[in-house]
C-alpha cells in the first residue's frame, strides 16, 4: 500500500516537472506546446549520450543547457513571430516542430531502445517500513521537488520572476510599466524547454529511452495541465499528484481500466469544469 503511494509520488513528481514547463509556456504565449514531449525525449537522448561518456551529472547539465538553447531558438524563430496570430495556428506549428524533432532523434540515435543505469551513488535499495525501495526513485522525488521549489520561489520572490508573472498576466501593460517583454519570451520558453529536457534525463533511468517516449508522456502532461487548469502551477501540482496516485493504484486495483482513467478524468473535468481545478474563466 505504502509502496504504491510512493510509486505514485515518484511518477506524479516527474509529471509535475514536465507539466510545469508546459504551464510556463502556456502562461506567457497562450500556446499548448505539442513539441513538449519531443523536447523531453530530446533531453533524455542528449543526456544519455553525455552521461555515457562523462557521467550522470554531466548528462543532466547537458540536457538542461541544450534544451534551454533549443527553447530560446524556438521562441525567437517561431513563437514570437506568431504572437499576434490565433493560438490554434501556433498549436499546429508546434505539431510541425514535434515531427521535426522526432526525425532528428530517429536520425541521430536510431529507433532502438536505450537504457541508462542510475549513477552508482543512487543505485541502491533502501528499506522503507520493511519493504525495499530503489534509492533512485527517491532521488526523482527530491530532484523534482528541488526544481519545482526553485521555480516557484523564483516566480514568487525573484525580480525577474515578478516580470514573468506580469508579462503572463498582461504583456502590453507589463511592457508599459518598463518590463522588457521581448527578453521575457525567449527566457520563459527556454526555461520551459529546459524543464522538459531535465525531466527527460531524470526519467531516463526510471522509464526507458525510446523514440515514442515523448508522445506517450505528452498526452499525460496535457491531461495534467488541463485538469489543473491551463496556466496554473498549483492546479498542475494537484493534478500531477492525483494522476500519479491514480496510475499507481489503478494498475494494482483496476488493471483493465488503469490506462483509461487519466483520460476519463480529463474528459470529466473538461465537461463539468472546463477551466480546470484552479483555472480562471477565459
Amino acid at each position, binding site marked *: 500500500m505504502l509502496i504504491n503511494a510512493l510509486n505514485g509520488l515518484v511518477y506524479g513528481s516527474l509529471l509535475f516537472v514536465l507539466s510545469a514547463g508546459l504551464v510556463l509556456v502556456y502562461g506567457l504565449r497562450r500556446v499548448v506546446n505539442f513539441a513538449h514531449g519531443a523536447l523531453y525525449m530530446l533531453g533524455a537522448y542528449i543526456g544519455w549520450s553525455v552521461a555515457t561518456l562523462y557521467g550522470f551529472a554531466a548528462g543532466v547539465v547537458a540536457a538542461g543547457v541544450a534544451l534551454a538553447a533549443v527553447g530560446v531558438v524556438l521562441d525567437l524563430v517561431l513563437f514570437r513571430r506568431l504572437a499576434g496570430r490565433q493560438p490554434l495556428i501556433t498549436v499546429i506549428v508546434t505539431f510541425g516542430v514535434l515531427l521535426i524533432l522526432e526525425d532528428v532523434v530517429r536520425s541521430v540515435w536510431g529507433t532502438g531502445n536505450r537504457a541508462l543505469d542510475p549513477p552508482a551513488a543512487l543505485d541502491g535499495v533502501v528499506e522503507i517500513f520493511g519493504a525495499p525501495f530503489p534509492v533512485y526513485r527517491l532521488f526523482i522525488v527530491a530532484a523534482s521537488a528541488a526544481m519545482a521549489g526553485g521555480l516557484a520561489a523564483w516566480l514568487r520572490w525573484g525580480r525577474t520572476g515578478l516580470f514573468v508573472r506580469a508579462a503572463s498576466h498582461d504583456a502590453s501593460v507589463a511592457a508599459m510599466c518598463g518590463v522588457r517583454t521581448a527578453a521575457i519570451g525567449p527566457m520563459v520558453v527556454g526555461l520551459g524547454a529546459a524543464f522538459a529536457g531535465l525531466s527527460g534525463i531524470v526519467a531516463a533511468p526510471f522509464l526507458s529511452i525510446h523514440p515514442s517516449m515523448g508522445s506517450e508522456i505528452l498526452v499525460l502532461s496535457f491531461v495534467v495541465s488541463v485538469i489543473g487548469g491551463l496556466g496554473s502551477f498549483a492546479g498542475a501540482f494537484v493534478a500531477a499528484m492525483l494522476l500519479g496516485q491514480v496510475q499507481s493504484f489503478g494498475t494494482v486495483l483496476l488493471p483493465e481500466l488503469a490506462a483509461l482513467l*487519466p483520460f476519463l478524468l480529463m474528459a470529466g473535468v473538461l465537461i463539468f469544469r472546463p477551466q480546470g481545478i484552479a483555472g480562471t474563466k477565459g
Partner: protein
Amino acid sequence: MSAMTEHTLAAPAVTRLLPKPGTLLVGLVVIGVAVVAASSAPRVLASLLTQSVIVAFLALGVGLLIRISGLVSFGHAAPFGLGAYGAAWALSPAAPIAPEIGLLLIAPAIGAAFFLIGLVVSRIEGIAFGMLTLALGQSVHVAANKFRTLSGGSDGLIVDVPRRLWGFRTEALQTASGMLIVAVAALMAVLLALAVFERTRAGRLAVAIRENEERVRFLGYRTRAPKAVVLALSAAIPALGGVLFTLYQGFVSPEILTWGFSGQALIMAILGGSVALWGPIAGALAFFVLREELGGLTSHWLAILGTTLIVVTVTWPTGLAGAFGALGRRLTGTVAKGDPA
C-alpha cells in the same frame, strides 16, 4: 413576394439546396477519372490512390469541423477506427444482425453517438476542445488495446469478408482498382450531401454560430443542436471511411486509433485548406503522394512533413484549396465574392 425572401433562411427552396450544375459535373468527372485510373493505372499507383481516398474520408471529417465550426480535433482517428472495428464486428459470424444491415448502420450509429457527445460538450471550444478530443481519442486507443476479447488487442482482428454482400461479389472490394471506384463514388456522394447540408438552415446556422454564437442566440436560435449536428457529420464521414478500410484491408488493428493518425488527418486537412469543401481531400492526396515520393528519396520524411506543415500554416493558411481558388479567379478574371463555396 417579400414574405418569401424574408423566410429564405427558414425554408430554402429545394432547388437552392443543390449546388450548381457545373459543380455536379465536376463530381461526375472525378468519378469518371477514378474509373479510368482504376482500369489503367499501375497497381502501385492504384493502391496508393485507394489508400489516400479512404483516409480522405477522415481528413474530410476533420476539415469539415474546422470549416463549419472552427474547431480543431486531435482525436478523429476514433470515429474512423470505430467504423473499421464496427465493420469487423458486423462481418464476424457472431454478429446478431445480417452484415448487409450492420455495415449500413455503422456510420449513422457513430454519428448519433457523436451527436450526443456534441450536446454534452457544446460549450467547449478552442484549445480545450482539442485537448478533449485528444483525451477521447486516446481512451478509445487504450480501450482497443485492453479489451482483447472484443478487439484482439494489439494483434488486431483479421476479417473474413463474405463472398457476397447485397448480392454483389466482394472480391473487387479487396482489389485496389475495385475499391478505388467504390470509394471515390462514395466520397463524391458525401461531398454532394455536405454541399446540400451547408445550404440548409442548420448548416447556415452552424456557420453563423462559429462567427458569433452569442449573437445567434440573441436572434432567438438554439445553438446546441446545430453544433452537435456538425460534430456528428464530422464523425460519421470518417466512420464510413473506416468501414471501407476494413472491407478493403480485411484487417484492423489499434494502429488506426493512435493520436499520431489523428494528427496526420489534421495535417491533411490543413494542407488542403478549409475554404473549399474538397480541400481536405486534395490534402490527403497530396500527403500520400508526397510521402510516396519523398519516402523513396530520403529518410527524413517526418522533418519535411513538419517543415511543410509549419510553412503552410504560417504563410499560406488557406492551403491547396485557397491556392486553386485564387488561380481560378485569376484565370477567369472574376473578383472574389467573399468566401468561395
